[in-house]
C-alpha cells in the first residue's frame, strides 16, 4: 500500500513539474540571467548593445563567396553597395552619389562618393569598386545576379562604368544586392583565404570576432560615411533550434529574431514585450509539373490540377493563415506582380470534367516528390488531400535535400511537385526567367521543362527594357500564358517576419530578409 502511494506521489510531483514548465503566460517572462535582458535601459542608462539571432551559421563574409540569406544578413552590416533599394523598392544612392544608364540599356556609369573609409582606415577608391564588381562577376556564387554583367571599368578617379552583356532592366536592382558589396582590395589581396572570416568593408559595423558555431561580434564603425550607428556592440548569436530562438527572445537573451516556427507566430504577436513585423516575402510556392515528359505533358491534366487546388484552405492548414494567395507566377513583393490577376478558380467539378477530357475519367495515380522539411511536407499533404477529392491519387515521396535537388532540379525526373522559388531581387525577371525561359531548361531552374517561343520572347522583352509600364505589360502577358498552359500553378507567398524587443526602434520587415541594424536604436 505504502509502496504504491509513494510511487504515485513521485509521479504526481514529476508531472506537476513539467506542467508548471509547460503552461503559463509567456508575457510574464522573467529576463534571463545572460547579458542583454529585455529592458532597454540598465539603471537609466540607454542600452548600446544588440543581440541578433541567426538560425544558421553564415558560410562566408565575403560578398562574392556566399549566397545564403544568413550570410547576407550579417554582410549587410559590414558592406555597402553602390546603390541601395529603399523600403518601397526605389533605387537610392549608396557608395555611388549618382549614376546614368546608357540609352541602349547596356552601360551604367557610377559617380563614386568621395572620402568614404574602409574599416582599416583606407579611403575607398574606384580601384576597390572595379575590383569588387569584377570579382563578383567572376564568382559562381553570385551568377544569378551577375549573369547579365560583363565587366566594370575605371573611367577616372571618381567614375566607374558597368558594361552589361545585354540590355537588362533590373541591373540597378542587382547592383543593390549585398553580393555586389564593395570590399577593400588591399585587404582581400593580402589575405585572400582569410578575408571571408575577417572582412573589411565600408559598412556601419566592423568585424571583431567569429566564434564558430556560437556567435559573430561586431562593433560600431565611427567613421561610417552616413554617421556612426546608434547601436554600439552588435552580436549575431547562432541559435539553430527555432523553438529555442523563440524562448531566447522571450527571456531577453536575444533582441531580434527572424526565423521561428510558424506555430510560434501567434504567441509572438500576443507577447506584450515583443514587437512583431511582417511583410509578404520574396518567396512563392507553386505546383510544378514536368510539362515535357510523362503524364503531365497532358495540358488538360495540368489544368485539372489548377482547378482542384484551394489556396485558402492550404494557407490555413499549412501556414497558420500567415500567407497570401498568389495567382500570377510572380510574388507580390516583386516589381511586375500583376495585381487583380485571376488564376483558375477552385472548382472541383471543373477539375473532374477536365480529368475526364484528359482521358482519366476514373482518376489516376501520380507520384509527388517533396523535400523532407515540414515547410514542404505539410503543404504537400494538403495538396494531396485536395487532389484526392477530384480523383487524383498523389503518392508522396519524401526525399532528402541532396537527392531532391538531383532528381527534381537537375534531372527533372519527377511528375508533380510542390516547390518554391526565392527571388534575391524583388523583380519579376527573377521569378520568370529562370523558371520559364527555355534556355534554362535542364539546368537548375526551368524544372517544368517549359519551351514556348512566344513566352521566351516576352521574357526577353521584359528583361531588356527600363520602361516600367512596358515591362508590366509583358509580365501580364506572361502570366496569361502560364495560366492558359498551366505550366505551373502559383499558390501563395508566405510572410517574411521579424520579431524584436518592443523597445527597439527602427525595425522594418523585408521581403528578401535584408535587415539594417544601422537603422535600429533603443
Amino acid at each position, binding site marked *: 500500500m*505504502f*509502496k504504491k502511494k*509513494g*510511487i504515485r506521489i*513521485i*509521479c504526481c510531483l*514529476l508531472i506537476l513539474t513539467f506542467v*508548471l*514548465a*509547460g503552461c*503559463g503566460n*509567456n508575457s510574464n*517572462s*522573467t*529576463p*534571463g*540571467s*545572460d547579458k542583454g535582458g529585455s529592458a532597454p535601459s540598465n539603471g537609466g542608462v540607454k542600452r548600446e548593445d544588440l543581440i541578433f539571432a541567426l538560425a*544558421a*551559421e553564415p*558560410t562566408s563574409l565575403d560578398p562574392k563567396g556566399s*549566397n*545564403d540569406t544568413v550570410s547576407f544578413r550579417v554582410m549587410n552590416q559590414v558592406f555597402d553597395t553602390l546603390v541601395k533599394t529603399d523600403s518601397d523598392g526605389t533605387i537610392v544612392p549608396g557608395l555611388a552619389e549618382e549614376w546614368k544608364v546608357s540609352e541602349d540599356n547596356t552601360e551604367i556609369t557610377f559617380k563614386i562618393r568621395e572620402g568614404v573609409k574602409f574599416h582599416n582606415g583606407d579611403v575607398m577608391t574606384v580601384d576597390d569598386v572595379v575590383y569588387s564588381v569584377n570579382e563578383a562577376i567572376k564568382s*559562381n*556564387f553570385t*551568377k*544569378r545576379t551577375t549573369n547579365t554583367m560583363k565587366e566594370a571599368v575605371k573611367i577616372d578617379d571618381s567614375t566607374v562604368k558597368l558594361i552589361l552583356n545585354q540590355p537588362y532592366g533590373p541591373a540597378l536592382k542587382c547592383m543593390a544586392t549585398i553580393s555586389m558589396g564593395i570590399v577593400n582590395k588591399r585587404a582581400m589581396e593580402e589575405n585572400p*583565404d582569410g578575408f*571571408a*572570416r575577417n572582412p573589411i568593408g565600408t559598412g556601419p559595423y566592423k568585424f571583431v570576432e567569429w*566564434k*564558430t*558555431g*556560437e556567435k559573430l561580434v561586431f562593433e560600431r564603425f565611427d567613421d561610417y560615411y552616413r554617421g556612426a550607428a546608434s547601436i554600439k556592440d552588435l552580436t549575431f*548569436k547562432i*541559435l*539553430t*533550434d527555432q*523553438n*529555442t530562438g523563440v*524562448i*531566447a527572445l522571450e527571456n531577453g*537573451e*536575444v533582441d531580434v529574431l527572424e526565423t521561428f516556427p510558424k506555430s510560434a507566430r501567434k504567441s509572438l504577436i500576443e507577447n506584450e514585450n515583443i514587437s512583431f513585423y511582417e511583410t509578404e516575402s520574396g518567396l512563392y510556392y507553386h505546383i510544378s509539373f514536368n510539362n515535357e515528359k510523362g503524364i503531365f505533358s497532358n495540358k488538360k491534366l495540368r489544368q485539372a490540377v489548377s482547378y482542384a487546388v484551394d489556396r485558402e484552405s492550404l494557407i490555413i492548414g499549412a501556414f497558420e493563415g500567415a500567407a497570401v494567395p498568389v495567382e500570377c507566377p510572380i510574388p507580390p513583393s516583386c516589381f511586375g506582380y500583376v495585381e487583380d490577376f485571376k488564376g483558375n478558380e477552385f472548382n472541383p467539378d471543373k477539375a473532374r470534367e477536365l480529368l475526364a477530357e484528359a482521358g482519366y475519367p476514373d482518376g489516376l495515380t501520380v507520384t509527388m516528390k517533396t523535400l523532407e522539411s515540414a515547410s514542404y511536407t505539410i503543404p504537400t499533404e494538403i495538396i494531396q488531400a485536395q487532389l484526392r477529392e477530384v480523383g487524383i491519387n498523389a503518392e508522396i515521396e519524401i526525399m*532528402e*535535400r*541532396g*537527392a531532391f*535537388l*538531383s532528381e527534381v*532540379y*537537375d534531372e527533372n525526373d519527377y511528375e508533380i511537385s510542390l*516547390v518554391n*522559388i526565392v527571388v*534575391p531581387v524583388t523583380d519579376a525577371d527573377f521569378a520568370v526567367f*529562370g523558371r520559364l525561359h527555355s534556355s534554362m531548361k*535542364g*539546368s*537548375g*531552374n526551368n524544372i517544368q521543362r517549359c519551351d514556348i517561343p512566344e513566352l521566351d520572347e516576352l521574357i526577353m522583352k521584359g528583361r531588356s527594357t527600363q520602361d516600367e509600364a512596358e515591362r508590366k505589360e509583358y509580365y501580364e502577358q506572361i502570366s496569361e500564358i502560364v495560366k492558359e498552359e498551366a505550366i505551373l500553378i502559383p499558390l501563395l507567398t508566405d510572410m517574411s517576419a521579424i520579431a524584436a524587443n518592443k523597445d527597439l526602434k527602427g525595425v522594418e520587415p523585408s521581403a528578401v530578409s535584408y535587415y539594417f541594424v544601422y537603422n535600429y536604436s533603443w
Partner: protein
Amino acid sequence: MLRYLLRRTFQMIPVLLGISFIIFSIMAFTPGDPAKLILGENATVEAVTELREEMGLNENFFVRYFKYVLDALKGDFGVSYRNKIPVFDELFSRFPTTLKLTFWAIFISVIIGIPVGIISAVKQYTIIDNSSLVITLILTSIPGFWLGLMLIMLFSLKLGWLPATGIDTWKHFVLPSVTLAGSCMATVIRMTRSTMLEVIRQDYIRTARAKGADEKRVILKHGFKNALLPIITVVGLTFGLQLGGAIITESVFAIPGLGTLMVTSVRMKDIPMVMASVLFIAFAIGIINLIVDILYAFIDPRVKAQYEKK
C-alpha cells in the same frame, strides 16, 4: 603492458581506414551534388559545373579516395566545402565544448546513477527500488529535445535562474548537461542495479557477511568493486556515443559542438568535414575504449596479470 598499448593503438589504423572508405563511398554514391547544395536550387548550370570542376568532383571515385587518404596521411584533411576553412580548425574549435558537455553529463549520471543503482539493488523491491525503476523508465522515454525545452521553460523562462543558450559561463552548461545526463543516467542506474544484484548473491559476499564485516563495507568494498567492470564499460561506451551524438541537446541549447557540425555537414554533403568528424570521433571512441581497458587493469588484478603475461 606497453606492448599491449602500442598494439591496440596500431589496431586502430585498419579500423579508421575501413571507416574512411565506407563514409567516403556513402557520401559519393548517395544522391545529391555537393556543388548544387552549396550554390542552392536556383543556381545556374554553368555555376554548378564550374564549382564541381573546382572541387575536383568530376574525377573518378577511387582517384578521389586515394588522393584523400594520401593527403590525410600527410596530415591534410582538406578544407570545408561549406565555409572554406581547414576542417581540423573547425573540429578543434568545437571539440572542447562537446567534451565539456559530455563530461558533465556523464559526471552527473555517475554521481547520481551509481548510488541510486546500488541502493536499488540492496533494497530490491522496496519503494526506493520501484521509484528508481519509474524514474529510469521516464528518463529513457523522454525525448531529449522535449526535456531540454521543458527545462528551458522552467528554469530559464519561468524562474529566470539559468540561461537558455550559449556557453560563456558554467551556468550555461547546467541545463544541457542535465538534459544529456537524463538518458545516460537511466542506463547507469539499471546497469549498476543489475550487476550489483548479481554480485551480492555471490558466495564471497555471504562469506564476508558471515565473518562479521560491516554491511557498508560488504556492499562497497566486496560488492561494488566487483560490479564495477560492466559499469565502467557502459559509461565508457556512453561517453563515446555522446561525443558525436549529442546533436539534439546541442541544437536546443545552441551549443557549438561536434554533433551539430556533423549533421550540418552531412546535409550539405560537405565531404571533407564529414570525413574528418567521423574519423575524429572514431579515433576518440577508440581511445576511450583503450582507457576503459586500462582501467580494468587497475580495478581487477586478474586483468592486470593477463596484460603482464602478454
